[in-house]
């Protein structure tokens, strides 16, 4: 390689220790790639000065797309010319993050030719991230990616790349097919994913059960969390096995039930399924003995987000239970209605959760045509200041005014 190796005494400290080292990864790439070498140099500078050296964004992308590429430029381009451009590509991951070695190698070959040789497996939203390349490389990377059957993910005010847990592929608790729904939504919203047209970002996250392994409830505008309506499936002899092999069923299982819907008499476990809130604890504690019921589907919640702009929100219940049947018409009708109302009335950079806070959940429900039900609230309002929209007038008042 032509470029001189950067001296990185501070970063070198992070090659030590047992946890896998990102510095080692950058150094491996830097042996062949000048971009990775200058990244090392600039990062060492940040470690010395305790401040980042990347400039604010910049609009770059591939033809016809408004998202998928994050523009990035160094603010020290003369010292680190090979990272003067260091744009990121978000590549839509296969649902559930399953790969073959063959697909991974081909992705690596593309990135060896056109970028820094560094990646994130994966970004927070779920995309496979190609970390760092120049503007003129974007189209060639994109062409080769699409030849391989991959496409860019979302960024900006668009449908962000949907993501999900591994669902039915490897989990007995999946109450619906998370990967199938994720693939469907990703394909159904290709235009919205690649061409930002909303007030702000829109995230779908699919978790197969209330354990919520992809944190849907905390970071998706629409959180789709698997659940069931009938009785927990129980294998009595397996319960006995757990008891025999040391599980303290009274203390560890019954004692932790938030609904207090279980009883254990030392021989038989009884569940009052009407009272069960589907929290998953007993099932998590005894996976061989208990399982979600057979009448499975999902709960749809709306509106979670991180703090920017008006504070963090958790999603709240919109549809307590839905059965999914391809082509998921009930779901897409609902989403389209929400998008319409939010796009029409949302302010710039207002996530749907903040929009709901501003206009009121009641008004939002009315606008999207969903009936209010008690499942949507932790409790009814405590505050008596109600915005009634109409009032009666005595006939005589009209007469007097006439």
């Amino acid at each position, binding site marked *: 390689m032509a470029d001189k190796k950067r001296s990185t005494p*501070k*970063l070198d400290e*992070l090659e030590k220790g*047992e946890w*896998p*080292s*990102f*510095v*080692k990864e*950058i150094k491996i*790439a830097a042996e062949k790639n000048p971009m990775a070498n200058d*990244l090392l140099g600039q990062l060492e500078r940040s470690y010395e000065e*305790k*401040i*980042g050296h*990347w400039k*604010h964004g910049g609009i770059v992308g591939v033809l016809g797309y408004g998202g998928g590429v994050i523009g990035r430029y160094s603010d020290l381009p003369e010292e680190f010319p090979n990272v003067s451009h260091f744009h*990121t590509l978000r590549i*839509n991951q*296969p*649902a559930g*993050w*399953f790969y073959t*070695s*063959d697909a*991974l*190698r081909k992705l*690596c070959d593309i990135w*060896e030719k056109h970028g820094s040789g*560094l*990646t994130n*497996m*994966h970004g927070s939203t*779920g995309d496979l991230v190609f*970390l760092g390349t120049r503007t003129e490389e974007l189209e060639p990377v994109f*062409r080769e990616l*699409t030849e391989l059957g991959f*496409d860019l993910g979302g960024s900006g005010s668009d449908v962000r790349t949907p*993501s999900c847990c591994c669902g039915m*592929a*490897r989990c*007995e608790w*999946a109450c619906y097919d998370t990967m199938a729904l994720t693939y469907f939504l*990703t394909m159904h919203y290709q235009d919205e994913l690649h061409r930002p047209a909303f007030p702000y970002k829109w995230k779908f996250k699919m978790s197969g059960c*209330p354990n919520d*392994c992809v944190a849907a*409830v*905390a970071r998706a505008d629409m959180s789709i969390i698997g659940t069931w309506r009938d009785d927990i499936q129980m294998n009595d002899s397996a319960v006995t096995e757990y008891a025999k092999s040391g599980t303290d069923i009274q203390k*560890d299982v019954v004692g932790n*039930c938030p609904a207090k819907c279980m009883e254990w008499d030392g021989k038989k476990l009884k569940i009052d399924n009407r009272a069960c809130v589907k929290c998953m*604890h007993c099932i998590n504690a005894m996976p*061989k003995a208990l399982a979600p019921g057979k009448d499975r589907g999902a709960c749809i919640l709306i509106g979670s987000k*991180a*703090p*920017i*702009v008006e504070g*963090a929100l*958790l999603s709240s219940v919109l549809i307590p239970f839905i059965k999914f049947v391809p082509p998921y018409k009930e779901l897409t009708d609902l989403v389209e209605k929400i998008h319409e109302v939010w796009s029409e009335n949302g302010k*710039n*950079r207002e996530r749907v959760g903040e929009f709901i806070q501003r206009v009121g959940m009641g008004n939002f429900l009315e606008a999207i045509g969903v009936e209010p039900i008690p499942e949507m609230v932790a409790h009814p309002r405590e505050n008596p200041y109600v915005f009634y929209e109409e009032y009666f007038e005595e006939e005589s008042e009209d007469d007097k005014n006439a």
Partner: protein
Amino acid sequence: MPEVQPKPKRKTDIGPPHYENFLPPIIKENYGKWKYHEILRPGVMVTVSETDARLYTVRAASPRLLSIDKIRAYADLADKYCRGYLRFTSRNNVEFLLTDESRIDPLIKDLQALGHPVGGMGNSISSIVHTQGWVHCHSAATDASGVVKSVMDELIEYFTEMKLPAKLRIALACCLNMCGAVHCSDIAILGIHRRPPKVDRSKIKVMCEIPSVVSACPTAAVKPATIDGVPSVEVIEERCMFCANCYTVCPAMKLNDALNDGISIWVGGKVSNARSEPMFSKLAIPFLPNNPPRWPEVTSAVLNLVEVWAKNARKYERMGEWINRIGWPRFFEMTGIPFEKVHIDDFKHAGLTFKRSAHLTY
């Protein structure tokens, strides 16, 4: 006339490849037919199907930032042990999917030789979900990968063993934008700015739309102002809470500041519904300095939190559930963290976070 080659048609909007292309045969055969799973030892799990098919998963740590060389090494391991199939998890671990139990030990040996410890299942600390930090972000108040590496070097025994009362999820975001959505983690490490934006008057007129900068501020701290005849903004500093939303819409409002940026630590959040409902993380330590390359103040603070919780929590009790049982005064007493003015919320709905009863321990 020279023959013109027709340009190949440009493909767009094809979406990701279908996941079925990447599923190993055992998964295709048993899709939706799994009966139960069992963690056999740290980082090793068996999932058993209705037909008694057994899929073994081996989970290994990853730094998330991976070179293509390392990905190729993973691909080689997948070929050697799993007919070429592997996956990644929502916490950036890599998982190898085996059908032959006897191949687990050799795979673990190979992974360890490659520098990737196996673990992160059950009552352990899994990999830290994190953001880009100084490696790639313009608004970072701290590095991400370096802090994560330093913290996990300290906590590695909790990754490779399962000796905690419950699982513990740590996440790091390098600014309040929280790309990593860390706000519902057992322990959240959050980069913070503490100096109001410095308005770059020479740039703001050309780079930014003044009305959108003004409206970006959730506390109305940014006001339009004409300075020396040039349109600009002024910042009412006492109203600034350092969210950096103005900087997100306008590069001329930089908040990054080496003297004032640093890290805050938040505790007790969760996303799972198990036992208790999902909870936000709450402020434990308002500020720790950026002290690269090893961030010793942050690593010892996190280690302390983990150890005090691990020693005192009951079986299955997540950090937030433990704190809810013992109460916040005990939490601050047991962890030795001083309680300060900034621990008391003063943004919207702050009153809901005050103690509104006489339920206290003495």
